């Protein structure tokens, strides 16, 4: 169990988390490679969102480890993980509803000198230049994502699809090395979904690594270099989408049921109590 190779951004080993007595994620191990889009798929209750919450620090793993660029971040606080360069979106978009869209985005920019209250009180000139630059950058990101008409609007008034776009702009504003996108196209108009796919590829082109959860196979085939399939808290298989979608365990996991027993046998897992609900 050596620390990750150089092109491995994220190294997840034997990770486990339980809600009460039932394991949502158990013995989960995989890596995310630099400059790639890794898709995370699996049926409801597979543990994908729980995994994202552990990677972003909201949940503390019960067992296992997470290394980010070779650094152990297991159980670190969300704020610390964010400062190390992981930015995220949320499964249900979280707006700062009574703030304008642009302020939602600018907020995420790291190292803002004007966040020091003493500077805010006595030395406002010290952050004018930075603030102007950040606002220009945020405006550019919002235009790039097609939100140019909503820059000054209250974030609480955005539609569902616009919220997802704004969350991507906000995550980019943090200048991340790794982006975690939790269902970026859920409930989104197909046209917007295609825009998101294009933008995600462009983001990766800039050297950012992306790990995303998605259910839409069309979207995945457009963006993902590699797909990790989860079921019942474990990694079932991984590989290019075309290959894994033909995999019989994947078919079993998605269609459920009849072949569950066979799937369990083939992955060498003992059925654990309550695992199905995780």
């Amino acid at each position, binding site marked *: 169990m050596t620390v990750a190779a150089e092109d491995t951004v994220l190294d997840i080993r034997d990770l486990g988390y339980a809600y009460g007595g039932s394991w949502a994620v158990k013995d989960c191990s995989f890596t995310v490679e630099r400059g790639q889009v890794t898709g995370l798929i699996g049926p409801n209750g597979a543990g994908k969102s729980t995994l994202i919450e552990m990677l972003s620090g909201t949940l503390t793993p019960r067992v296992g480890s997470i290394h980010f660029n070779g650094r152990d971040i297991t159980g670190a606080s969300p704020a610390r993980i964010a400062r190390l360069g992981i930015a995220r979106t949320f499964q249900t978009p979280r707006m700062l509803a009574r703030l304008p869209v642009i302020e939602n985005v600018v907020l995420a920019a790291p190292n803002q000198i004007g966040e020091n209250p003493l500077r805010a009180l006595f030395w406002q000139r010290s952050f*004018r230049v930075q*603030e102007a630059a950040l606002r220009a950058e945020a405006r550019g990101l919002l235009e790039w994502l097609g939100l140019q008409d909503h820059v*000054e609007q209250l974030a609480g008034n955005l539609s569902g699809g616009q919220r997802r776009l704004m969350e991507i702009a906000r995550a980019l504003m943090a200048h991340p090395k790794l982006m975690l996108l939790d269902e970026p196209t859920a409930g989104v108009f197909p046209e917007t979904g295609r825009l998101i796919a294009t933008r995600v590829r462009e983001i990766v082109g800039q050297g950012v690594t992306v790990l995303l959860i998605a259910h839409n196979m069309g979207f995945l085939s457009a963006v993902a270099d590699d797909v990790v399939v989860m079921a019942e808290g474990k990694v079932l298989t991984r590989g290019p989408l075309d290959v894994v979608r033909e995999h019989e365990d994947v078919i079993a996991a998605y269609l459920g049921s009849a072949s569950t027993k066979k799937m369990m046998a083939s992955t060498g897992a003992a059925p654990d109590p309550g695992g199905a609900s995780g």
Partner: protein
Amino acid sequence: MLYFITDLLVLGCINSIMVVGLNLQYGYTGLLNFAFYTYVAIGAYIAAVTTIGPSTVTGVTWVLGWTLPWWVGIILGGIAASLLGALVFAFTVRRLRSDYLAIVTVSVAFIFWNAINTYIPLFDGGTGLFNVPYITGNAAISSEQYSGIMVLLSAAILALFVWTSRRLFRSPFGRLLRATREDEVVTNAFGRPSWQPQLWVFMIGCFMAGVAGGLFIFYITAWSPYAFLPLESFILLAALIVGGSGNYWGSLLGAFVLIEGLAELSRFIPSFGNGADVGAIRAIIIGAVLIVVLRYRPEGLIPERWLHWYSEAPSGLGARIRAIGRSG
């Protein structure tokens, strides 16, 4: 008549200082503090015992008994309130979700009220402090002249604190405060532990409370546990919500309209029955106004301005009033 107006203005300015401080905590940052008046009381007591000198009356006792200048007393009162705020915050708020914060602050208010009321060596228990000297010292001065002096002093401090809250609000720090109020999960997820700005604001707000308490005790020259019943914090909160939280104009309006307009003026209702009825009517009116405002105008008389704190926007009083008209 002039005395009536200056007296009203002094109390209005002092109450406004409190509401401006509470607005920093609740309006900007979303910290619901039902113990706010406890910090006012701490400021008042500390300002008094650091300036009044030792007790000369048998059976009347208080701690410290220093004879510092009045302005040092006021500043020390503010600092004491601020440090107490930091302590309460460190022990409670930091570990609790905001839902529970309200309950914790209510408990803090009751603990301090009972401790001060019962433990006589501290601040003379239930009798309280009295004969606190005027800030003008031994100069022969009428109460009319004194209230004139206090109007100037409290208005100047109010202006300073409004400027402070305006500067804090119109900055990236202000954005961080409002973001924390809206959703702490987001600020944490983007590298900003929410307790840091919250602690700052809690301390600054409590400092304002303490200074207001110092001004208050130097004006009315006496203070006892019956001056800071838990109801007072509720009245401040009601003033803030009615005026409009999240902006200082709403704070000022709430302080003057609700506390001054209704509460102080109700003293001049012709008395009928026994004297306690007037106090009861005051509480009833404030409660009723709060219910009506929350039902029909939950954002307050002057809602929060959210657009353009940044300098691209027009500034100045005229532009602000037009903006209020638009958003209303």
